[in-house]
């Protein structure tokens, strides 16, 4: 059997590359994210309760809800994990034993290959689609309701907001540059179902993308991007974020050089799993919120 929800939350790292990278975003969205790990700790933080018996009761209901496959929580986890795992195998090998404060980026740069722009753009869109579909699985709004998602984006906070900030910064600005929104629109406009079918990220989560046929799925992907691009643009502008500022915040723990920006995007791609990490945190928070209300 796959891991239980308490194992997943108990085993979240307190310190690794993903956590360092997410912490570097604190300058962009100050105070939003705290790396909450541990199942019991999550229950305490989310509910504000401290009675041991009550915490166990809440935990028991959360476990029960998670274990019921028809509730959609396990599917959401699969999505968060799957979208992160494409391309990480290489990263794990290159970085084996190098989980230290100062990551020798330059020592592995020759093993990195920046993704072509088209593949990077599709990756960005697939992560966005993952967010929408997983949101609906967790919160129960039907899978194609992009409008509800956009409304909810306004209320995003904590680990969900940091995931979106990381998406904009690490999968948009750094690999694609300051015009990533316009660029993505252009690439999407010319994309064919065949292009999509040959993309590893799309292939990995194709079954979960609303639409059925690749052509309809492409329409869904386009609509998803269209609905969220305004929010992304405002986010970048209101926070005054540039590729340089993102990288400069990361410099405290990675020895990156400015002229290696595109390689750095590839580095983040293979060395972090921020979707899975924060996805587990979102999932457990929502489960606990529901469990405490239902007991």
């Amino acid at each position: 059997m796959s891991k239980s929800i308490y194992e997943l939350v108990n085993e979240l790292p307190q310190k690794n590359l993903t956590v360092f990278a997410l912490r570097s975003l604190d300058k962009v969205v100050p105070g939003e994210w705290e790396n909450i790990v541990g199942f019991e700790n999550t229950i305490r933080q989310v509910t504000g309760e401290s009675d041991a018996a009550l915490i166990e009761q809440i935990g028991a209901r959360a476990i029960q809800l998670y274990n019921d496959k028809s509730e959609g929580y396990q599917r959401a986890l699969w999505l968060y994990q799957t979208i992160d795992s494409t391309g990480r195998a290489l990263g794990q090998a290159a970085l084996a034993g190098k989980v230290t404060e100062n990551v020798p980026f330059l020592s592995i740069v020759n093993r990195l290959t920046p993704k072509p722009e088209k593949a990077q753009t599709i990756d960005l869109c697939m992560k966005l689609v993952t967010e929408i579909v997983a949101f609906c699985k967790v919160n129960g709004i039907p899978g194609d309701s992009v409008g509800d998602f956009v409304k909810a984006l306004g209320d995003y906070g904590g680990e969900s907001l940091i995931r979106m900030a990381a998406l904009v910064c690490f999968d948009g600005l750094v690999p694609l540059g300051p015009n990533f929104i316009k660029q993505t629109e252009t690439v999407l406009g010319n994309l064919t179902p065949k292009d999509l079918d040959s993309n590893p990220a799309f292939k990995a989560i194709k079954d979960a993308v609303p639409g059925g046929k690749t052509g309809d799925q492409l329409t869904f992907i386009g609509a998803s991007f269209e609905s969220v691009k305004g929010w992304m643009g405002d986010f970048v502008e209101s926070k005054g974020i540039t590729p340089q500022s993102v990288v400069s915040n990361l410099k405290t723990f990675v020895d990156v050089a400015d002229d290696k920006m595109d390689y750095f995007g590839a580095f983040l791609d293979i060395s972090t799993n921020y979707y899975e990490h924060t996805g587990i945190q979102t999932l457990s928070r929502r489960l606990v919120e529901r469990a405490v209300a239902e007991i």
Partner: protein
Amino acid sequence: MLRKVSIAIGALLLVGLLAVGGCQLTQLKASQPSDNARWEQIEEQTPAVDVDKDAVINGSAFNKFFPNANGYERVYTQEKDGFAEAKLKQDGNTLAMMSVSDTISNPSATNKYQNSERSLAGYPLAEVGKTATSLLVADRLQVKVLSRDDAFTATDREAWLEKFDLAGLAKLVN
């Protein structure tokens, strides 16, 4: 003298290595095997509830009976089978979570009302922990308000429970 110094250096190195190793272990993973074992035991003691899913009222049916915001902000956050929840916010700050759940999905939730000495609007009331106050409507639907800000007291929770359309909710059952 030289021997003493080398022993001291050796000891220091050893302590250093242990400290570094120990730190890495604790820092890299929050994994607590004993904690996993405890939850595993709880999981075994809490088998899945045998629910007739068709009998459960869908969360979407509850939404319209939630209190109107009136100067506050109401953001619906979850809508699942037998469950709907909304945040109560003011100036961007979350004050409370408001929810309705169908106890058919989790029958043990009704136990606490059996010996309840208090009622509100004619429905039995239960207060659990430091943050929760709830009512059982029509012996089946649990309406709950959970504080998410210290300033939002038990009195506030009761006031907001009364703002739900409780009679409307009861009609869903009867």
